[in-house]
């Protein structure tokens, strides 16, 4: 009797999480859709002019901004994070691992405003002095985000690498492969789907980060032409202007949130898709599998 009650209660709490998600979705769509409709989805997405007080809502510069900053963050964060994960999962002695892994997890717990502050105080002036431009830039945002996504990528990558059965490694070594050859040709391919999921989740983190980006990106509504140019991301656009926005301006920010929401949802679905089929010996690239899964779902 009691057990059943507890089960019910827990179930309800679990479902309320879904309820909250549903409510958020309904809310931002309800708030944002009128502006999307009025401006036209194409014009909203690909319009270059963002003059919210004159009723011009084009978020193309912000879409480009989010994209380049995310790519930059991945370019900086992924190689470092993967290298780190390989060392921790495969090469490091257990005692070093016992020290390093919690340290990296701690990195994930540092508030983003602290990363942003480090960026403003150290990175931005350095870029201004040595590389030119105003300082706050695509590069500054990429570096800060690259560091911020590392704990996410490292954590999931280590899990993926450790999930590769010991027998694979032993078999490979028995065939005369060196340790590095084993990692490169056996362990990494076997863990690939998990590693891909790690990168995609890191990508979602980079795309969604707001505070640190506002502090170091400069926030000009303009498509950047160089990595030292300032840039505004989708999240920054919402956070910057929310305070004073009213009427259609506020609704346009919700519409920006819809776009962001769709992108992040798509990335997360892709990540769980990549993770769901861990060890299938297939050479089909991820997008083919995604397509396959979609068409199966449609049938």
């Amino acid at each position, binding site marked *: 009797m009691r057990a059943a009650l507890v089960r019910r209660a827990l179930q309800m709490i679990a479902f309320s999480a879904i309820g909250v998600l549903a409510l958020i979705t309904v809310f931002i769509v309800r708030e944002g859709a009128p502006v999307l409709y009025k401006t036209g989805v194409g014009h909203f997405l690909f319009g270059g002019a963002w003059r*919210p007080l004159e009723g011009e809502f084009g978020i193309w510069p912000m879409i480009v901004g989010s994209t380049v900053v995310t790519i930059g963050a991945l370019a900086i964060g992924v190689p470092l994070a993967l290298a780190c994960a390989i060392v921790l999962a495969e090469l490091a002695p257990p005692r070093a691992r016992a020290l390093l892994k919690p340290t990296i997890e701690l990195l994930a717990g540092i508030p983003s405003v602290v990363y942003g502050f480090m960026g403003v105080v150290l990175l931005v002036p350095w870029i201004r002095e040595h590389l030119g431009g105003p300082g706050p830039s695509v590069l500054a945002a990429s570096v800060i985000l690259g560091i911020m996504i590392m704990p996410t990528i490292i954590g999931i990558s280590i899990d993926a690498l450790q999930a590769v059965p010991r027998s694979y490694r032993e078999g490979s070594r028995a065939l005369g492969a060196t340790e590095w050859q084993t990692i490169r040709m056996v362990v990494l391919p076997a863990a690939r789907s998990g590693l891909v999921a790690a990168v995609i989740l890191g990508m979602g983190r980079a795309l969604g980060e707001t505070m640190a980006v506002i502090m170091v990106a400069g926030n000009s509504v303009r498509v950047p032409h160089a990595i030292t140019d300032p840039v505004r991301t989708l999240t920054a656009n919402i956070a910057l202007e929310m305070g004073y926005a009213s009427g259609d301006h506020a609704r346009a920010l919700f519409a920006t949130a819809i776009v962001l929401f769709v992108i992040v949802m798509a990335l997360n679905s892709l990540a769980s898709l990549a993770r769901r089929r861990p060890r299938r010996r297939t050479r089909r690239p991820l997008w083919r599998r995604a397509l396959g899964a979609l068409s199966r779902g449609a049938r």
Partner: protein
Amino acid sequence: MKRSLSVVAFACLALGACKRDGGGAGNAQGPLTLAGSTSVQPFAEKWSEAYSAAHPGAQINVQGGGSTAGIKAAQTGAAQIGTVSRDLKADEKSLTPIVVARDGIAIVVNPANPITDLTLAQVKAIFSGQAKSWKELGGIDKPLNVITREEGSGTRGAFEELALGGSKVATSALVQDSTGAVREMVHGDPAAIGYISLGLVNDQVKAVKLAGVDATEANVVAGKYPLVRPFLFVTQGAPTGTAKDFIAYVLSPAGQELVRKEGLIPAQ
């Protein structure tokens, strides 16, 4: 599932209702509503707090929305008092404006910047993106790093109207979302220039002279400094009841002292 959804939905509705209710019921006179400029809003809230403390039972709602929304609210009667942080336009003169305070806008540069004086034409060239380097203005050989506030900010709106004649700040300008952030950025970059409320200038930044006039409270009061915006209360006809009483308090020495402490310039 269905039940939990409805529980959550109900909780949200209840929360929303509470928020909207904010001091509605009771009071024979009904609540006094102020709506409009987001620049005036923080000061209006200070006034309303102090006024409510002195008049228990008085209910004052302070809302934002922007100067234009404030004018509309006063015209339609949605608010007894509209708050406006710019001069009234020709077609808005039917309302009664009362200047409750004034705010100067200072052009600030890094203290290390040798420039001490700019003309209004130069300010316009800088912020509209025509001037690219400090050299063109007789300064150091560095590109200008223009810093502006975000769209919708009252300070930005007033600056564009007063200094740029209604045209926009260039899109190449860096955007920061608070006075503090603009000041911090100017403080950290020898080639930066921005604008902030005069009352919020400190020794981290240097306020430049405009056409030879120092950006000081005295010069604003004397009418010499050009970048000054009025903070207005507008009412439909002469104010009555609580509105009249509240305005009288705002203009009283106590009310004016309150805004002086917050960095504004008193109305008189």
